[in-house]
């Protein structure tokens, strides 16, 4: 050992030091990258975690038959759109009997969300039997109250500058002492479409929009991509033409996504007249975008199937098609699927191509199919980030969390499939 060290000793120390230094550079690089990631995640989680809870106010509501359903017809549609404001006002006045002035009453009503009346409508139309009874109901509070309860309003600030005035805070504190204000799990966030009121805004519309777009994208891009890859890899003879195609496919993978949006605008909307703002056209544009990714991944995984498999199949008398579809494609499938999933994950996060085809829009109704107008998750994040209302700050981060969860799930699926199905040669 010592002899060996002696022989190579000139410069050895320096070389060892160099190696150690290099290791440390690497570690520092990883550390920096990790700390950025941790910072980003913690900021998003810190900001967004609040949105999963929503402040609710308990009111003793009397569902007076005279106001809601004077004729007693109990028509669900009529019950849904009946005027529930007087019912809520009544319940609030019962809670605050000493507030009498018209302006004060209006101020007081503002602690409830402007969407509270629609919640009531939904509740009554689902269960008409509560008409005529009196019940304690948790009603969604307005965004300002919500922010106050979550400690996001600076009460030391001058009264005139705050949206929530001292008077409102007195009301809220009185309710809080009676345990009538609580933070509850925010189901509306997962069941509603978009809204201008932060407390009523939800991501279901956007999530379904993303789902339908990805479905269309998958149905188009997957078969097209796989077939292209199989043909180019297994059948096409190498010629100038296939070289050209190959170069173009590789180049397409690097084209900025907005270009595909423009293409979608002029071809799908302009020539084929597919309706604007729908997941159908969104999915088609995203399919164009993911096609090169899928083709490249599929070709790579076809190429990794050893030559011997094909030769063995030929040796047993299989035809070219049999060889390809019975042996080569199934063996390459895990790699193809992994590539597809990664391509889809990329498509899930795209906003730029959707800009041109009208999917960046305010859409309240939840889509039920590929031809209903819809947005997508990243678009929803963009729209909320651009809204002036303060309550949207936490919604934006919460929507980012949801999008990240979906992305992580898709990537995990890809990793799982690779680990589970991949064959090593």
């Amino acid at each position, binding site marked *: 050992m010592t002899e060996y060290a002696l022989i190579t000793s000139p410069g050895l120390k320096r070389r060892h030091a160099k190696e150690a230094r290099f290791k440390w550079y690497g570690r520092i690089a990883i550390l920096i990258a990790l700390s950025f990631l941790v910072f980003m995640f913690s900021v998003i989680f810190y900001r967004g975690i609040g949105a999963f809870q929503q402040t609710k106010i308990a009111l003793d509501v009397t569902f007076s038959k005279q106001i809601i359903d004077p004729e007693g017809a109990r028509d669900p549609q009529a019950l849904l759109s009946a005027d529930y404001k007087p019912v809520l006002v009544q319940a609030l006045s019962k809670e605050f009997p000493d507030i009498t002035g018209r302006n004060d009453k209006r101020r007081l009503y503002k602690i409830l969300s402007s969407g509270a009346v629609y919640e009531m409508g939904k509740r009554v139309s689902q269960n008409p039997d509560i008409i005529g009874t009196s019940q304690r109901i948790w009603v969604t509070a307005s965004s300002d109250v919500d922010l106050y309860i979550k400690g996001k309003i600076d009460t030391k600030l001058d009264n005139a*500058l*705050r*949206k929530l005035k001292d008077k409102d805070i007195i009301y809220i504190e009185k309710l809080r002492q009676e345990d009538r204000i609580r933070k509850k799990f925010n189901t509306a966030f997962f069941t509603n479409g978009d809204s201008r009121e932060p407390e009523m805004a939800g991501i279901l519309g956007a999530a379904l929009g993303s789902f339908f777009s990805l479905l269309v994208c998958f*149905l188009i891009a997957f*078969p097209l991509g796989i077939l292209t890859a199989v043909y180019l890899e297994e059948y096409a003879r190498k010629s100038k033409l296939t070289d050209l195609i190959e170069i173009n496919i590789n180049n397409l993978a690097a084209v900025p996504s907005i270009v595909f949006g423009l293409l979608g605008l002029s071809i799908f909307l302009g020539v084929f*007249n597919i309706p604007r703002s729908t997941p159908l056209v969104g999915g088609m544009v995203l399919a164009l975008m993911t096609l090169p990714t899928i083709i490249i991944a599929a070709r790579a995984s076809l190429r990794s199937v050893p030559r011997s498999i094909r030769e063995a199949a030929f040796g047993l008398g299989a035809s070219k098609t049999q060889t390809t*579809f019975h042996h080569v494609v*199934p063996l390459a499938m895990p790699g193809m699927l992994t590539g597809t999933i990664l391509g889809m994950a990329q498509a899930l996060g795209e906003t730029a191509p959707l800009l041109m085809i009208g999917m960046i829009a305010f859409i309240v109704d939840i889509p039920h199919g590929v*031809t209903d107008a819809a947005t997508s998750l990243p678009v929803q994040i963009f729209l909320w980030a651009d809204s*002036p209302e303060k309550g949207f700050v936490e919604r934006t981060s919460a929507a980012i969390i949801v999008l990240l969860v979906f992305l992580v799930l898709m990537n995990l699926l890809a990793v799982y499939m690779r680990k589970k199905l991949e064959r090593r040669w």
Partner: protein
Amino acid sequence: MKTAMKIHNLREQWRNGFAKMMKEITMLNKIMTASVLALILAACGGKDTPKASNSTQDIKQASYMRNQIKIVGSSTVYPFATTVAENFGRTSAFKTPIVESTGSGGGLKLFCSGLGVNYPDIANASRRIKPSEVKRCAENGIADIVEAKIGYDGIVIANSRKSPQMQLSLKDVFLALAKNVPDGNGGIKPNPYKTWRDVNPALANLKMEVMGPPPTSGTRDAFVELAMEGGCKAFTWIKAMKKTDKAAYKALCHTIREDDVFIEAGENDNLIVQKLGTNPKAFGIFGFSFLEQNADSVQGSIVNGKAPTFENISNGSYPVSRSLYFYVKKANVGKVPGIEEFLGEFMSDKASSADGYLSEKGLIPLNAFERTKWKASVLGLEPLTLD
């Protein structure tokens, strides 16, 4: 022995592998058939409705029909249009209109591109429609346009509440932000000013840093026209130039400096508000609704002695304010269900009056007289005339 076992095992593995492969092939086949089917379905989906109906008129109707109102246009009007759309969707039997934020120019371009399902019914604008746009509309068969003025918006020059409030005149704004400024001898020179005191000795000795919208923004257009040009006109010789050399006048008054004093902060006004919070020395240019929603952290500068308040913008004394409009295709009224009802909702007292829900979102409403006038002309679907 061992090798034989190994071979046996390998063979076994292969057999399993093949079984798996066959499964995968059938799966693949299924997926492909399913996708092809879905594609065919999707392709036919749109055409199914007219085929099902009998008379030719039905087919015509169906090819035109859309059961949801489409709105495009200004990002300034977007918060108001969406609020009305949402309330309309909730209280009526119609679907909630789709509102896209494309900018005033982009919106009117789409609006004027043609009649039919794929073009919007309504365009929002943070300025009045231009004669060129009306012409474009007419060329594409859109003859009658209904104009609606819904209110005002102020453009504020704001800074953080941690710093003192600034008192500016339009002339100060022009001198601070123009690319070229008068050199005092009847000529122009590149803007040399770096601090607010350079611009006006009465102002603070503070390095200028102003964040504003990019050229694509309607807010920027309005700011340039109202604030910059307003300050520009304070010089009598420049004002005189408007008559003699309009191009030079425009170039001087409408060009914002490109050095580090003016920072283009993108279309996202929230971002500017956030940056003002972290940098007390900086100023930002954005719409009044953002000031109102963030009044706890930012304050608007006083311009020509008037603070950007609800009252001052509404009575027109705050100098940097503009009108907000929307435009409706008369031909689509009655074809796309709900347009008339939507107009009714937008012009109703509960939406756009002084204590309507839009004022809570930062819209500065028209005065009672103007409102009655506009309400009547919009609900009467009176076509637009440019004077």
